[in-house]
């Protein structure tokens, strides 16, 4: 099979799974679970083939499929792998089976619909990553909202309706302005170069006046920043995380939040380089505010899920800082940090789900001394905590270290796009991160024994298997990040070049250019 076929199979397996689940008679919950897990495992194994065949030395798209779709508008069905998305695709397919298996005992009502939605969101997330056409990207990007809306709204906690509608309306607001920007961008490309196309590669060639770039960047950035989320657009995240079922939280923290940073990396910054360079100081300050503010908020939470939710805001701040640094190490670090946070946060949310299933509370104060009662659970939890803190040998260290290095490189560059104090402040996030996570673990695992609804059984085989697989990936990325980073290096260089280039029209062309919105 050609790689492009494999990629299509990987992408459409979940859709086939949804149809198969719909065809299953009601009441066959066991069959639904087994079928979903089998599909997810098959999808991951197939994506390993793609990963192995991915050639780090070839620039551009690999395993690509291009079909004309709406030729009159220049919309094509174009999917493919490149250095930007290869690791994120792997992260998505890797987490798929773990999410599925993790929900086996937690979800007992409307099982058919639940797994259909898990498969649908898997499809939409993969589609968003592999889409190389802006129209297609937007389609997948918005489609993600629907299954997540139902996942939180049907299987969530007490305030699930409020949380899910807030989630949907928040993210949809960003998207609607992005839609206007998408249309305007494609129209300007057609207007200035005569190319009717939505393909990313063509859109990079659009020549836009600085003011237009700034407007469009603002529209894209709003949508992406809500998704990341960056302070001050983060208020939907704690609600969504707390009310979501475990699987929803895992998907949200594991993959969905990376959509925002991926969007910035693939679209927002490279499409509007001149506006981006002007915005870098502001973006880096917001990123550091996210890091520090998220960490401070995590410090004072009493709800276990909220601690991890706010830690996500903090960790994704590093990704934004790395992207804003436009330094090779920083960018590479940002990509690693995305994957690392995907693994670690997913693991932590899975573990919170496991304890919640047993004890039915997320109040931190209700727990204590779990290390004595649930030794296996506690060991896994501690390791994940250390990975979240960024202990060397874990993936968290690789990501954060490279990002900070990149930020200081940028701060010491002649133009100093990132102020030194901003980079310095980012380091304090590491300390704060260690503080809130270790304090959390100390109160949770050690001290006087407090187990609500105890005594409770320790982790069973299924749960141990999930966590072992997850930790293997965490250590693999911490000990041998080279293989993964080699695959992203060309993309990081391309990103650097794209953001460094001038995309405003040359002065001579400005006079002949057609009227823009400014003159209308």
């Amino acid at each position, binding site marked *: 099979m050609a790689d492009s076929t494999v990629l299509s199979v990987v992408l459409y397996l979940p859709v086939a799974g949804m149809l198969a689940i719909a065809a299953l008679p009601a009441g066959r919950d066991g069959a639904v679970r087994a079928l979903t897990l089998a599909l997810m495992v098959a999808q991951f194994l197939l994506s390993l083939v793609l990963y192995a065949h991915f050639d780090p030395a070839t620039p551009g798209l690999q395993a690509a499929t291009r079909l004309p779709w709406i030729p009159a508008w220049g919309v094509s069905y174009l999917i493919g792998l490149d250095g930007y998305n290869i690791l994120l695709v792997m992260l998505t397919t890797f987490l798929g089976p773990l999410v599925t298996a993790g929900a086996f005992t937690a979800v007992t009502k409307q099982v058919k*619909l639940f797994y259909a939605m898990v498969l649908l969101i898997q499809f939409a997330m993969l589609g968003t990553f592999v889409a190389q056409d802006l129209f297609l990207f*937007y389609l997948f990007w*918005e489609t993600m*909202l629907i299954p997540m809306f139902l996942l939180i709204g049907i299987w969530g906690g007490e305030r699930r309706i409020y949380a899910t509608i807030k989630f949907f309306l928040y993210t*949809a607001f960003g998207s609607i302005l992005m*839609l206007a920007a998408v249309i305007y961008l494609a129209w300007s490309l057609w207007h200035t170069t005569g190319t009717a196309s939505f393909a990313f590669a063509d859109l990079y060639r659009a020549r836009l006046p600085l003011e237009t770039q700034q407007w469009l960047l603002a529209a894209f950035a709003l949508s992406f920043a809500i998704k990341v989320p960056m302070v001050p657009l983060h208020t939907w995240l704690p609600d969504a995380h707390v009310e979501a079922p475990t699987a929803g939280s895992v998907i949200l923290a594991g993959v969905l939040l990376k959509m925002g940073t991926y969007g910035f990396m693939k679209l927002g910054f490279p499409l509007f380089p001149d506006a981006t360079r002007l915005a870098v100081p502001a973006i880096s300050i917001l990123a550091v505010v996210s890091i520090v503010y998220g960490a401070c908020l995590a410090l004072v939470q009493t709800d276990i899920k909220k601690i991890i939710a706010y830690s996500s805001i903090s960790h994704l701040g590093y990704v934004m800082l790395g992207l804003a640094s436009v330094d090779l190490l920083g960018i590479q670090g940002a990509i690693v940090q995305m994957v690392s946070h995907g693994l670690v946060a997913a693991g932590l949310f899975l573990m919170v789900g496991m304890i919640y299933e047993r004890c039915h509370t997320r109040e931190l104060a209700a727990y204590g001394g779990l290390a004595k009662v649930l030794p296996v659970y506690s060991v896994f939890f501690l390791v994940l905590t250390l990975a979240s803190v960024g202990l060397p040998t874990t993936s968290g260290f690789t990501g954060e270290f490279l990002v900070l290095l990149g930020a200081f490189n940028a701060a010491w560059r002649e133009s100093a796009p990132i102020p030194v104090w901003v980079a310095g402040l980012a380091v304090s996030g590491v300390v704060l991160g260690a503080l809130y996570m270790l304090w959390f673990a100390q109160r949770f695992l050690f001290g006087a024994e407090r187990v609500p609804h105890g005594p409770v059984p320790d982790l069973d085989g299924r749960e141990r298997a999930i966590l072992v697989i997850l930790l293997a990936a965490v250590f693999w990325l911490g000990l041998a990040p080279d293989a993964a980073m080699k695959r992203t290096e060309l993309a990081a260089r391309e990103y650097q070049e794209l953001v460094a280039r001038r995309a405003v029209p040359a002065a001579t062309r400005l006079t002949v250019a057609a009227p823009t919105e400014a003159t209308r």
Partner: protein
Amino acid sequence: MNFTAVSVAMAPEHLLLAGIVALLVLEIASARSRAALPIAVIFVGAAAVAAALLGASGWTGSPFPGQFVLTPPAAFAKALVLALAVPVLLFSREDFGEGDFYPLLLASLYGVCLLASAQSFLTLFLGIELMSIPVYVLVLLGYRRPESAEAALKYLVLSGTASASFLMGASLLYGSTGSLGLASFGGALASTDLLARTAVVMVVSAFFLKAAIVPFHGWAPDAYEAASVPSTAYMAVLVKAGVLIAAARVFGTAPVAEPLAGLIAILPIASIVWGNLTAMRQPGLRRMIAYSSIAHAGYLFLAFLGDGPGRFQAVVFYLATYGVMNLLAFAALPAHDDDVERDRLENLKGLFHTHPFAALAIGMAMLSLAGIPPFPGFVGKFLIFRNVIAAGYTGWAVIGLVGSYLGIYFYLRLIQFMFMSPAAAKAGHAPSRGVAMGASLLCLAGSVAVAVAPGLLLSRL
């Protein structure tokens, strides 16, 4: 007048006429017959196929020069409208097993077809009246409560006002240009002559009234609510399609200039915002759809800001996506003994537990109407806003898009009711029946086709 041309070009209309005659004969021959539905479906289906074939063959001509013209896009528009009528017929069986519903519906469809081909204000007026008059009766036909009579009368009076305004505009136009051809309207758009401008405003307000654009929208919620579900679906989809196609015929490809552009932007945007905001507070599905359709009329009229040549395409494509999804919602709505209780949103709570297919279908329809991808409604909205931006009205497009955002909440609320609430204690919906299910599947198939291959339809309009 060329006999072949008349019989070929008007084949869809002739088939509808034959259907009406057949239905009337049946009515005389037997008082209660179950054959009415199949006959109506066959004739409307045949008319749709005939129109599609005419369009595919590229037949262009004017059997009545200056009055009636057929071009491939017009033929495809007719095929589309007629195809949309088929599900309406199918799910009307729940409410109208036999009787006057079918001949009235076919007569009204005849009017819609005439509108798509009209070349002069006279034919257009004929089409509008042919389309509207049976609908007044259709609203009353579901007479199950006193408000129906009031709503029908309200609709009749306001629609009559619109017709009067339209005629007045047409005669003023005749006075200023000496022609009743639709082409004279394009000239009047650019004219600074007071008479021509007045004519344009009167004609446009007639369309606004018929399509329920704010502030001419007051009749729509009452009429939609009072009519039975199939009649509501017919009004929301096909009458709206007829009015918009007529408007697209009248505007032709002429560019819209200031100050008319302001009028054409502000009132539709007011409709989008007001329709979407008010829809949030409605207790029943029909009333909610009425306000939603006020908002959708707003999007449709925004399309007139776009460049002329793409206008007809944008309007008809949007009507296709909007129509098929609206019909899906109505077709899937389970039957109920009490017409008022049937679509009360409270009673739809937990519908997924009792009628999973219906809930999924209505849910998809709502998401599509909200313009959420991957449903076809998104492509329609994309096309309209693309044209508006390409014409240089970026500001209006952004305001319109933000207005469309306001609509997301009430569509989501219905999904929340159906999927996330416990089942209503005494909803009392009957189990889904075969014919209605068939109608929903038909709509679903149509929407999937449009979503997967929008290019196929676009290239023909």
